[in-house]
């Protein structure tokens, strides 16, 4: 069906069900319970999950298949975001033109940068992409926001002002926020069931729907002859060149596609929250998508999405655990023990979440080069070995090599 084999189809269906039911699945704890702070089913975080999922899927098309490690992908995300907000400023708050333009501009930008950077490979390629991204960030942060030619609005971030043209905007009929044909991205239906509260948000479902399309396209790319060619680049580019094949057009195509995915993610970020800050182009943001992809499992289909979810969960949930919360948890212990536990855990949660993330990341790179997906496979194999000796890993999550 849809040109997919049975295994891929079932993976796609599972992902579709999970994303559609995310508001339910991510809120497993009743709203008033002590565990409620671990709930992730609120619009902003769910949107981040799928948007950064798209970003990581796109990055994986380049890194997972060709092995080219780009340290500058955040630049495309930023370009996409700025394009989308400019559409809001000029045309109006309907998100479709913005998202479309963000894909187009980031594709063009990626083509330009790809043409230059792909002349080199290995670490030289990484440094070149890093250099371009840092230049874009530095310019967006300051020079491109000067009063005479304000393209990015610098540190504050590009946003819509009341005196912007917005030619097709009619504030009588349409919300003064990003919307899709009148339905605001912020519109949220809250549903309470017993002690649970679930939030169904328009922006999330738009992003989730787009992510499913992106995921489907990524499967098709992975399984296509083009995908095979990219894997050939990764395993041995020289041999490929000797056979008379020029690998450059293939890697360039992969670079542009992943740049467009990044731009799309950027456009969606602006669509759900119409302010584009320059920091999202900084090299640490590029490093973050690398972390996501590796944590989840580079070269696997589902890995990057998992990695994106994990990091965003850490950033938003783990960072909120402050000392008050810790004291609440351990209040059943005697005083001395309580303080000891809080002191021990304190450096790793709350504002120390970067430390925990760094440690987990090191452990994953050292012991699980295939990321969480490999971890899952190992566990799965251990379980299934008991049943049959011919345990086979699911094809859908097979690494590229």
């Amino acid at each position, binding site marked *: 069906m849809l040109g997919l084999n049975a295994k891929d189809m079932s993976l796609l269906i599972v992902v579709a069900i999970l994303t559609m039911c995310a*508001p339910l699945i991510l809120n497993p704890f009743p709203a008033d319970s002590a565990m409620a702070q671990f*709930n992730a089913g*609120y*619009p*902003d*975080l769910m949107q*981040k999950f799928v948007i950064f999922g798209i970003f990581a899927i796109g990055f994986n098309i380049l890194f997972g298949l060709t092995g080219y490690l780009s340290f500058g992908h955040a630049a495309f995300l930023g370009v996409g975001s700025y394009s989308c907000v400019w559409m809001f400023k000029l045309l109006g708050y309907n998100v479709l033109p913005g998202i479309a333009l963000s894909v187009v501009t980031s594709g063009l930008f990626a083509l330009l940068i790809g043409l230059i950077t792909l002349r080199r490979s290995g670490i030289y390629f990484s440094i070149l992409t890093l250099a371009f991204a840092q230049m874009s960030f*530095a310019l967006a*942060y*300051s*020079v491109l*926001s000067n*009063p005479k030619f304000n393209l990015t609005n*610098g*540190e*504050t*971030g590009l*946003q819509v*002002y*009341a*005196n912007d043209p917005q030619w097709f905007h009619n504030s009588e009929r*349409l*919300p*003064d*926020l990003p919307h899709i044909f*009148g*339905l*605001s991205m*912020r*519109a*949220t*239906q*809250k*549903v*309470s*069931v*017993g002690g649970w*509260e679930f*939030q*169904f948000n*328009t922006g999330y*479902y738009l992003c989730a729907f787009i992510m499913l399309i992106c995921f489907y396209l990524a499967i098709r790319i992975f399984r296509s002859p083009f995908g095979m060619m990219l894997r050939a680049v990764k395993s041995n580019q020289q041999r490929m060149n000797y056979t008379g094949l020029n690998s450059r057009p293939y890697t360039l195509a992969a670079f542009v596609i992943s740049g467009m995915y990044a731009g799309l993610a950027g456009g969606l970020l602006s669509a759900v*929250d119409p*302010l584009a*800050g320059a*920091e*999202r182009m900084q090299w640490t943001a590029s490093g973050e998508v690398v972390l996501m992809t590796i944590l989840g499992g580079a070269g696997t289909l589902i890995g990057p999405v998992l990695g994106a979810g994990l990091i965003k969960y850490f*950033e*938003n949930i783990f*960072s*909120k655990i*402050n000392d008050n919360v810790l004291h609440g948890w351990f209040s059943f212990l005697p005083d001395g023990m309580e303080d000891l536990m809080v002191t021990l855990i304190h450096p790793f949660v*709350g*504002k120390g979440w*970067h430390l925990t993330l760094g440690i987990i990341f090191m452990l994953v790179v050292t012991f699980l080069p295939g990321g969480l997906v490999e971890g899952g496979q190992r566990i799965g194999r251990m379980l299934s070995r008991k049943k049959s000796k011919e345990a086979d890993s699911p094809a859908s999550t097979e690494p590229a090599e």
Partner: protein
Amino acid sequence: MTKSNLTRRGMLKTGAVTGAGVALPTIFTASSAAAFTNEPTGSSVTLGFNVPQTGPYADEGADELRAYELAVEHLNGGGDGGMMNTFSSKSLDGSGILGRKVEFVTGDTQTKSDAARASAKSMIEKDGAVMITGGSSSGVAIAVQGLCQEAGVIFMAGLTHSNDTTGKDKKANGFRHFFNGYMSGAALAPVLAARYGKDRRAYHLTADYTWGWTQQESIAAATEALGWQTVNNVLTPLAQTDFSSYVAPVLNSGADVLVLNHYGGNMVNSLTAAVQFGLREKQVNGKDFEIVVPLYSRLMAKGAGENVKGIFGSTNWHWSLTDEGSKAFVKSFGTKYGFPPSQAAHTCYVQTLLYADAVQRAGSHNPCAVAEALEGFEFDGLGNGPTLYRAEDHQCFKDVLVVKGKDNPTSEFDLLEIVEITPRAQVEYAADHPMFAGGSLGSCNPGA
């Protein structure tokens, strides 16, 4: 949540998308239409404290958080009540806000506008925060203020000094107690002219972003009005750590004053470089060379160490003030934490009390009612003398402190000494002043 502008048609569509046409059984109760975003219904009310916990301003953020916790303690009737006892409005009585216990959630802005907005959004969407406050940078404050306007909650800005926060980026749901670049210039210029003379040539180094530009514009205008000349204004990248290439040309430029429009790590590094190059021992045009740092904070002064001695700047508040409000605040903060509060802590504490008081007086958390209670509000006893929350731009007008790095500090906290308390009248400006033009408050947004 933010069901602003959610039409009936939109509702139907939401239903179609989410429920996919499934009729909701009776156990599902779609939340009843609240009068405004996150209307508190239970026995408690949640405030959102959004401060930098990681990144270069993490220490400022930590101090802000201490102040917030202290404010919540006082609002709930704990501790010694701090400035609640000296505050001219007596509506707060230690029983929470409108009889509800005050609770809070914290978030990390990372000093990035994206992260700050995400964190504020999660506090509004997930934790039901009815007010957001905090921040240690103007870009972040402006970004979060815009979000709060869209979401329909009140934003009480923390440390933000750019003219734009209550200028071209002002919002009806946003309020700022802290002073701004214009006020720094207006307070500092006369003191500088009195100490250093009116015939001075100033060389500006300016952090190349929004705050730096408005700060530079303000101080240059204020000093030029008193006869100073501005020789040069050089923009420095925000990420710069070694300022030697920018400081070295100052020596031969003919300038006799260096103005450092830098904040945080930038200021520590540029001031260090200027001192290293021996600028302070120089004689130019027959006068002693001087350095000026328009925006000071004690935490920054600590970072700059010895280098701040004798250098002039301005601050919003300092713990050595001797009015009743300041004394009460320093006492309860110092007793609880063992060191005096910073100006960031002060403004955050005050903002929390002001919000609670406005709600109490308005009898509702509705942002429109709160805004009405704050607009044009005159109060005293919070450490800055008689203060006005101006209705036109939601900026507080109060006295500004001109300070200088202390020559003989007696303790590690005793780094700045107050040179002059500039009266409020001297730093006031018209709401349509050109440096603040270009924006409009819009109308208050209650969300739902």
